[in-house]
């Protein structure tokens, strides 16, 4: 019967595709960066540029300026988390030339062979970086694969009109009910990031542990802390915590530095709000420029990285989105009030930690977080 033959053909096709997918999957794990870098020269372009970046992270004027200077078109698409970007890049064939992964994601992408080594000859402006960044950070020890884009911190935004001006810079505002009560914090008043690493990390820091711990006992303690804080929480919110704070839905909000600055700047009573990284320590993160291993236009991407590392353009980025610049030469072009703002540039970074990928322990983090939420 025709029908049966058709079914058999389809089954064969299905089997073939699954096998192809399986082989393809293991292929992409072994390919990629061999450490040599693309064969490009400074200022060389090899086609239009496709950017895959966080939203509202790139001044549109910079894209126009790049088009004007090099005569290539720039398209940008956005993602809202490292985890949404990574599978798309790792699968291969994404078509993107330029991505901006955060620290721990960089190490994953390097391990998987998903990003290529940079050819430093094509990026002369790399010399503009602060020494701390130029020499490579833990996730990319020799700065082989990435160049830093911008950096910031994770901490607490507080509505001072409720707590009073002399609020302690501590995670205890969320995790210690007695302390919170002293500062007029009652009922449910706090939002935490809906992110296992950030929120478990905050609890770990409050307890005095590393936020990259791989100890089940420490993680368990952190979990209990979050369970105890349940009644004090308004929501787990990763996106609009700053809006909730300035509209009075919450009084204490866990979130990223730059977002708070922008939001506070637009509020009528900007002085009522503050942001700090608690004294117990917190997260410091760096977003980095990288080129996917199978980028269609690696030379244009190199030229774009060089373009953004220019002193004035680095400053333009920071003046636009209020995240700290790793660019030393950019310093003189950054608005003084931004440069002197302790929210943007924390004075003491010794208690700050990068989130690093903990391998198999990531599962423990995510399970603990789900259990903590209930």
């Amino acid at each position: 019967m025709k029908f049966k033959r058709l079914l058999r053909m389809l089954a064969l096709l299905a089997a073939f595709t699954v096998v192809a997918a399986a082989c393809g999957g293991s292929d992409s794990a072994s390919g990629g960066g061999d450490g040599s870098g693309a064969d490009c020269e400074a200022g060389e372009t090899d086609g239009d540029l496709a950017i895959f970046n966080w939203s509202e992270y790139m001044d549109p004027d910079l894209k126009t300026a790049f088009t004007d200077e090099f005569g290539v078109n720039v398209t940008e698409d956005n993602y809202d988390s490292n985890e949404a970007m990574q599978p798309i890049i790792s699968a291969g064939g994404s078509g993107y030339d330029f991505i901006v992964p955060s620290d721990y994601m960089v190490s994953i992408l390097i391990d998987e062979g998903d990003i290529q080594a940079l050819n430093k000859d094509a990026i002369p402006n790399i010399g503009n970086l602060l020494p701390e960044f130029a020499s490579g950070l833990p996730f990319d020890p020799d700065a082989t694969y990435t160049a830093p884009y911008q950096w910031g911190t994770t901490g607490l935004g507080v509505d001072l009109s409720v707590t009073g001006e002399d609020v302690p810079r501590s995670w205890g505002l969320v995790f210690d009910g007695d302390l919170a009560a002293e500062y007029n914090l009652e009922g449910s008043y706090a939002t935490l990031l809906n992110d296992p690493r950030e929120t478990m990390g905050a609890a770990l820091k409050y307890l005095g542990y590393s936020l990259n711990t791989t100890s089940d006992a420490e993680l368990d303690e952190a979990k209990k802390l979050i369970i105890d804080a349940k009644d004090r929480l308004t929501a787990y919110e990763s996106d609009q915590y700053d809006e909730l704070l300035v509209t009075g839905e919450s009084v204490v909000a866990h979130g990223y530095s730059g977002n708070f600055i922008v939001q506070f700047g637009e509020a009528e009573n900007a002085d009522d709000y503050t942001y700090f990284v608690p004294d117990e320590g917190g997260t410091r993160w760096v977003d980095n420029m990288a080129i996917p291993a199978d980028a269609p236009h690696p030379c244009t991407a190199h030229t774009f990285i060089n373009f953004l590392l220019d002193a004035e353009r680095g400053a333009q980025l920071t003046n636009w989105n209020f995240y700290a610049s790793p660019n030393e030469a950019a310093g003189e072009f950054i608005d003084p009030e931004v440069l002197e703002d302790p929210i943007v540039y924390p004075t003491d970074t010794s208690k700050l930690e990068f989130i690093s990928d903990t391998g198999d322990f990531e599962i423990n983090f995510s399970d603990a977080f789900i259990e903590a939420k209930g």
Partner: protein
Amino acid sequence: MTAVVDKPTEQARSATPEFEAANERQKRRRGFLLALPAYAYLVLFFFIPLGIVVAYSFATRTRNGSTSLSGWNLEAYRKLGEPIVSDILVRSLLLAVITTVICLIVAYPFSYFLATRSPAVRNLMLVFVMIPFWSNFLVRNYAWRVLLGNDGPASQLTQAVGMGETNILFTQTAVVLGLVYGFLPFMILPMYAAIERMDWSLIEASRDLGASGFQTFRNVALPLSMPGVIAGSILVFIPSLGAYVTPEILGGGKTTLLGSYIVVQFLTARNWPVGASVSTVLMLVMLLAALAYFRAGGRTL
């Protein structure tokens, strides 16, 4: 198939057994050909990809969170036995049932009312049900957040009528409200399609014979519109079981539901085998439920 070829077989419908069998065969083939394009499409663009995910559920997560396609095992299924997973499942089922029931209660009289309007008004009213949903999904959810928030319009309304402040934002009530809002059209569309084609003379006859409004509804209208009720319930129940954006935005993500659990496995924990195994089990259970339903004599749909 042209009219010329068809005619003799059609006319011979009651002629001889041979003709009847031939007719039956032809009808079967016609049905198959009619279904073929959709199924060919789904095989290529849905079932083959689905096969990949099912295969992934037997794979292993590597240290980096990628998926190693060797050393197949059942590890990912073992995780489903953890107590937290059954808690999540029960919670999600409960929420989906509540959402479906509310949608049923609201949508039935609405669809019934719609079906009693004149044809032009009916269509217009139906389109105006859908129009709000052509705005942006996220914007709608955030609009609800503003409506339900501290001192939001909802709270001001209840204060005005002397019911005091209401702040249901970030509660389970808000989640149900958001889900009902999002899925109500999924209930209304099939229900309306079914009620509209009901034989209304039966309703008329029932009333003329002295049956009360409720009796008519219970014994005549409801059985006649059952296909719509079932289709609508499926279209509401299943998506609300897997919903995660509305629970996160309106519920504040304070409890984990099935939808978010799967998202967390795929994206946050980058544990694709577990994400795949949860999805596979979910689909298998639903599929078996559907087959059991048909077998038990339930109408297809």
